[in-house]
């Protein structure tokens, strides 16, 4: 299994040119003679911009950058709301949520890819059907908000956990599964109880079991990534969370001012976070939705750390 956490290249071999270059974004090794990484499209000569706190911006991607997967290609076009324009080779296929489809050639075969656990997915508000498209032909995808497209090449054995509704498209060699986020809290007022899932009830898991695959996500605003050391933790706003390595653990964290019962109840005074434990990569987006919380009394919650000021 490829271990990106070690910081070493998964394929640390020099190319025929005698040079070797490891992509700072996806860890793919190449000979560095191309302008952009052949696996994820990141500029090869880009200087990594890392904030003082350790967050790295998603590497700049040249407009019209071209990625290869299998015998197929993906060209990323546009900068405000980027488009993934795929040229699928015969028998290569991708799957996606049908609302991200922008356009396609008439010869592309489109059908439904059934998913297990339909009832739970329906309860969680997740798509019941993934749509699959089989080459040959061209097909393009985009989302409905300004932001960045994240290409996550997955090496054999590698997996990532992604917050719901961020997934755009994945190649057929990437398996799709989902699991309970287990981040929740229940509020009560009178006889009315309500359970909230700040990260969503379910998280998506994408894995490349045997051969490399490509996963494309769309984030709102800008994307920032950092690598947590073993045991290192960080608090992240749940709606800003994008994805993490499977080695990163999560739990709820609640902060509030020390004071009366009334301040505990007040939404204006309490903060709900996701605590992420290293080792591994975590990513956030800069434009996030408002976290839904009715401000009522929390009567129970998933395993959490708490802090009073």
């Amino acid at each position, binding site marked *: 299994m490829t271990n990106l956490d070690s910081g070493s290249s998964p394929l640390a071999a020099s190319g025929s040119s005698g040079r070797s270059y490891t992509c700072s974004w996806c860890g793919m090794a190449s000979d560095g003679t191309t302008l952009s990484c052949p696996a994820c499209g990141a500029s090869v000569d880009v200087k990594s911009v890392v904030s003082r706190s350790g967050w790295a911006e998603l590497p700049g991607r040249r407009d*019209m950058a071209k990625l290869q997967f299998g015998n197929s290609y993906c060209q990323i076009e546009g900068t*405000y709301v*980027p488009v993934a324009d795929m040229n699928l080779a015969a028998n290569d296929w991708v799957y996606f949520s049908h609302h991200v*489809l922008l356009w396609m050639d008439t010869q592309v075969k*489109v059908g439904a*890819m059934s998913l297990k656990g339909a*009832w739970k997915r329906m309860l969680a508000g997740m798509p019941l059907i993934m749509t699959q498209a089989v080459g040959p032909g061209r097909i393009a995808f*985009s989302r409905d908000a300004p932001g960045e497209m994240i290409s996550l090449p997955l090496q054999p054995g590698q997996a990532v956990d992604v917050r719901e509704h961020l997934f755009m498209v994945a190649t057929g060699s990437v398996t799709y599964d989902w699991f309970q986020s287990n981040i929740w809290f229940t509020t009560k007022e009178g006889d009315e109880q309500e359970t909230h899932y700040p990260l969503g009830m379910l998280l998506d898991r994408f894995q490349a079991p045997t051969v490399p695959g490509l996963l494309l996500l769309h984030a709102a605003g800008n994307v920032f990534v950092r690598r947590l050391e073993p045991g290192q933790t960080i608090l992240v706003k749940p709606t800003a969370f994008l994805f993490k390595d499977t080695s990163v653990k999560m739990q709820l964290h609640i902060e509030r001012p020390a004071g009366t019962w009334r301040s505990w109840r007040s939404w204006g005074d309490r903060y709900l976070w996701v605590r992420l434990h290293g080792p591994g990569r975590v990513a956030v987006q800069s434009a996030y939705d408002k976290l839904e919380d009715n401000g009522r009394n929390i009567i129970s919650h998933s395993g959490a750390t708490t802090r009073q000021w």
Partner: protein
Amino acid sequence: MTEPQPHHDPLVRIECQWCKSQNEGTALTCRACGAPLDVKDMVSDSGWREAPRLRDMTEFQFGASACQVEGEIVPVAEINLGHGDSVFFEHHVLLWKDDTTRMSVLPLTGGVKRALAGMPFIISVAHGPGRIAFSRDATGELVVLPIHPGQELDVREHAFLVCSHTIDYNFVRIKGLRNILFGGQGMFMDRFIANQSQGILLLHGYGNVFQRNLKPGESILVEPGAFLYKDASVGMEVEPIKLTSGFFGGTSMNLARMTGPGRVGIQSMYVHHTTE
């Protein structure tokens, strides 16, 4: 003795790759649409061309007026109207105007049909001399489309920003019941026609804008919410695609089949339409 003047070969012209207007060989930007003339042709492998990214503060002429494009995330079209020139627009895109810029209303036919279709009942007109500026409410690109005599262009409703007075404005009903129900364009599209003289049309596309030329008979399937504009010669039909999987999984999506010949423009941040 007078100094010899530099010789300009009248045959040296740069054709704008965006609007096909002819420009002087020394021009850096297209005089008709403002597109940089030295821009590399950013055409994707699949044949889509990105709308030219207008340089901030780019200025171009139409008639006795000038338009300056300001800003890049939500661009503003600022127009300095010459005497006798006028432009028309939907009133919700007006950003600011000089106090002295005179306004009126464009006479329209089919008011009841327009009201039923959710199209603007009143189109406003601004008359020069005076300055007036327009912008939309979302991140996107300004698309400058000079319309040459004889050209007809169909535009998604509410997508047009401003148009010069030399262009005739009408609206067309999308043929076919299924188009009306599922096409995502409502019942009508705006149609802009240049009869005798050239004019200019400015659109605002959400996200990035791409254009492709379809050959005669060539078809492509487009998400209806992404459709932005097309030549009148391009056919548009709705194609439903059914997706079913097991007991729970039943849905369908409706795509627009666009058939050439002609140009098709799409926006990448599309208006989402719920499907069945």
